[in-house]
């Protein structure tokens, strides 16, 4: 029962990601795609800063003693948000999400296969390759 409830929360969180994309597209058309992107990161930073202040465990000091490359993941965030706000009004939310999913699964497969960024190497397996083929089919159909 508790597991089912947790699953429902995660399902709702996933729905939220599409609502976010659905809000971003029209907003970007109105005020500019870069401004819409900035709005996401500004409000997100403020919310998470509040969360950090009240978080039980403080790990901010440790952050800056990590290797530099580990701190650079965040520079890719704006790439994703700019793409969503630009593509959604022209492709629709569904097509955009499926295309993103394809890029995500394909890249994840490659990163795991070569053990990039210090992760354990996991060879490409039939499951994910099959999933990738099905997502490609869905992308062709949905568009």
């Amino acid at each position, binding site marked *: 029962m508790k597991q089912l409830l947790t699953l429902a929360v*995660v399902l709702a*969180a996933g729905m939220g990601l599409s609502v976010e994309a659905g809000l971003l597209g029209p907003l970007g058309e109105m005020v*500019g795609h870069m401004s819409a992107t900035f709005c996401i*990161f500004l409000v997100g930073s403020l919310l998470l800063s509040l969360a*950090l202040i009240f978080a039980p465990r403080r790990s901010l000091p440790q952050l800056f003693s990590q290797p530099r490359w580990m701190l650079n993941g965040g520079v890719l965030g704006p790439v994703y948000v700019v793409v969503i706000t630009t593509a959604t009004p022209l492709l629709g939310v569904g097509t955009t999400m499926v295309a993103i*999913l394809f890029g995500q699964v394909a890249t994840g497969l490659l990163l795991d296969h070569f053990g990039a960024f210090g992760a354990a190497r996991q060879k490409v397996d039939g499951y994910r390759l099959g999933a990738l083929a099905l997502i490609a089919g869905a992308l062709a159909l949905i568009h």
Partner: protein
Amino acid sequence: MSFLLIFLALMGGAALSVQSSVNGRLGGAVGLLTTAWLTFVLGALISVLLMLFAQPPQAMTLLDAPRWQLTGAFFGVFYIVAMVFSVPRIGIAAATVAVITGQLTMSLLIDNFGWLENARIPLDPHRWAAIALLFAAMALIYTGNRKREAAG
């Protein structure tokens, strides 16, 4: 034009995947909340530069837009918090599939009804067939992830 946009969206997904791989390592060291904080602060710094210097002046600014249209980040942050809470409880395999299922369902609903001032793209037979393929893909991802979780 739309081919180019789909390619762009694929690149966006690739960026997301690289980001979560790097962030996964950082999250292991300092925790997910701090990692998410850094990601958003970096994103804000980069996007304010883009907004000021890489965007033609607009007729409307963020402050003129209806406030409900500015709430996107709440959903993004809710997603992060939900994952921090849920992954240890239900495992990454189930969480991944649940997120993607929620994401795809809601995106098709928004398209179908034109919610949030988006253009209407009705669910036609092609889209239903795509949903069937996506379900099969989710089943494969779930099984593969479970196998890997079991292996360790």
